[in-house]
């Protein structure tokens, strides 16, 4: 991935996608929930960006709001999602449909529920090119067979006529990838695409995704809770906590020198297969309620470095040198911690 990313840095091309100060509200029984509360993100062409966090941090919600796929009771209250000069949050449904699947594609976690169970997989792959690119039936079928071959489905001419239930989990995810690639999109959004898969199949799918995006120059936004998976696929990473991005930077920088105590804690709480002796440090406490989040920094009740000022002032995401950003007032202490260990 590093080669891919250095290209995008050296040539300062315009951004592919720019999410600015996005806020989403859901009216719940106990009050207004704010699952996304001021998220800003950018993706350059050809770049792969990971979005990590625990369940309930708002990472999947952020991904869904880009394509207007939020549940009916959730509303974007402010902010913008600018894709190629257009704010997607202001597009009408019919105009948004011209973007969905055509220029921005999505891969979901559970391919069995994302595929149509009563439609042949080949036709599902061919549907996009026929609708969006205006291909004839024969052309779209040929394209689907070719795509199935590219994603590594054996005997594509025969498997074209199969139904999703006849495929294994890994093969279904390959079908999803073929569908996502079918209209040569500029950006693919992935929502935990390998979480439901076995480790050997996950390995195959991650390599396939990275390789295909590299070949076609497609940008990737990758949501997962699994930090090592991000290290395999992405060049940049953003860490989410309670509806906000708390840290951002290149994967190697963030994982080796975290500048937010939450990132530091996340890294220390999971066993690393290459460092067996290391003791696990759980993060104390629980993720906060999104109805009434803590004052000041949302992580302060669980933070080992919290000071009085953390309870009062809400730290913005501050830009540091080298594309890094952190929302911690005392981020230098993370560096001291790494130094002592």
């Amino acid at each position, binding site marked *: 991935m590093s080669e891919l990313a250095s290209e995008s840095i050296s040539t300062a091309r315009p951004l592919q996608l720019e999410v600015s100060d996005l806020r989403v509200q859901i009216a719940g029984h106990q009050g207004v929930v704010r699952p996304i509360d001021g998220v800003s993100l950018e993706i350059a062409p050809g770049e792969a960006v990971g979005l990590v966090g625990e369940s309930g941090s708002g990472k999947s919600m952020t991904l869904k709001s880009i394509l207007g796929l939020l549940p009916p009771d959730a509303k974007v209250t402010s902010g913008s999602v600018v894709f190629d000069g257009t704010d997607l949050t202001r597009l009408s449904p019919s105009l948004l449909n011209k973007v969905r699947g055509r220029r921005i594609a999505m891969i979901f976690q559970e391919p069995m529920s994302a595929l149509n169970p009563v439609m042949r997989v080949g036709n599902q792959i061919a549907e996009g090119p026929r609708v969006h690119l205006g291909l004839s039936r024969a052309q779209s079928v040929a394209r689907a067979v070719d795509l199935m071959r590219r994603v590594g489905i054996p005997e594509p001419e025969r498997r074209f006529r199969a139904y999703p239930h006849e495929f294994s989990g890994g093969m279904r995810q390959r079908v999803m990838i073929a569908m996502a690639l079918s209209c040569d999109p500029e950006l693919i959004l992935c929502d935990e695409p390998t979480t439901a898969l076995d480790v050997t199949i996950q*390995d*195959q799918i991650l390599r396939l995704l990275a390789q295909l995006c590299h070949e076609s120059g497609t940008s990737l936004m990758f949501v997962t809770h699994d*930090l090592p*998976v991000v290290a395999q696929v992405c060049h940049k990473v953003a860490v989410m906590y309670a509806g906000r991005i708390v840290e951002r930077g290149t994967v190697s920088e963030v994982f080796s020198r975290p500048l937010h105590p939450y990132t530091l804690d996340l890294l220390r709480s999971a*066993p690393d*297969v290459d460092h*067996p002796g290391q003791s*696990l*440090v*759980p993060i104390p406490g629980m993720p906060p309620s999104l109805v009434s989040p803590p004052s000041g920094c949302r992580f302060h009740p669980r933070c080992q470095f919290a000071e009085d000022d953390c309870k009062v002032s809400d730290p913005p995401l501050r830009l540091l040198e080298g594309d890094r950003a952190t929302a911690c007032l005392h981020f230098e202490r993370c560096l001291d911690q790494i130094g002592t260990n």
Partner: protein
Amino acid sequence: MSEQDILEATGIEVSFSVGSPLVARLRHQPHLLHAVDGVDLRVRRGEALALVGESGSGKSTLARAIAGIQRANRGQIKLDGKVLPSSRRSRADQRRIQMVFQDPYSSLNPRLTVGGILHELLRVHHVVPRGDVESHTRELLRMVGLPEDAAGARPRQFSGGQRQRVAIARAIALRPELLVADEPVSALDVSVQATILNLLQDLRSELGLTLLFISHNLAVVRHLCDRVAVMYMGRIIEVAPTEELFRNPRHPYTAGLLAAIPRMTARDEDEAPAVRGDPPSPLRLPTGCRFRTRCPIAQQICAERDPALASADTDSEHRAACHFAWSVEAANAPEAR
């Protein structure tokens, strides 16, 4: 069975019937799925033994057969030298092997309070005198790190991690000799996983528990367990002390499984996937070695003969079921891929 073994399972077979036997016979298709197909396993007193493998490898079924909640079609399970009956176990035997399940949302009775769950167990199994049930419940909650007032709450009032603590309290309430934990942290968030893993480790040293730990997460296994048994398509294909297995895997499937773990460092993009293809259908197993259809070093002999689990020399703890496990070719297998 040697002195140090607490459990010895020999020739365990568990099969399930799939679909209608009549239709299968008319179509000349098999209808018996051999989830566990002839497994021998020894668990030593006080150790943490991991059972790893992908979905469908039979690891959960084997664990359930050992815990006595899934009847084995064939084979024998000895606990402390005593053969356990293949059908219903006596209450005293049930008590000695306890289980923690993956999903703490469905494995606790939603209508009972946590105290109620524990009281019932302690009374039915006569673990402590009746008068001590209350105080013993408090002691159990303390051991798993829950506050005392948790006894009055129902499972739905707890988070996933806390529910898993309740499930662990329930399992250790009966003072079992063997604790079988089936993916106990897979349904939990990363930050919560650590608390449960640390708890299991503490309980091991505090109570001298023997742990059979089923997981697909090899990083967790390397962190927690002393020995690892790798399963593939209903068989154990390699077993070794943890560090030995991670440093020197002898079965090509184990080598592939280890190479497939996502690491914190970026990898070479052009490298081929560690294991190719999908697992075969468990209804139509390949002849000979079950892994040969995906194996990078498969030869003619692999299609003809089913390799037995064997070690390089008799006293070695490291055993693998591959024709080439202990020959020169296997040593070069990772490079050959």
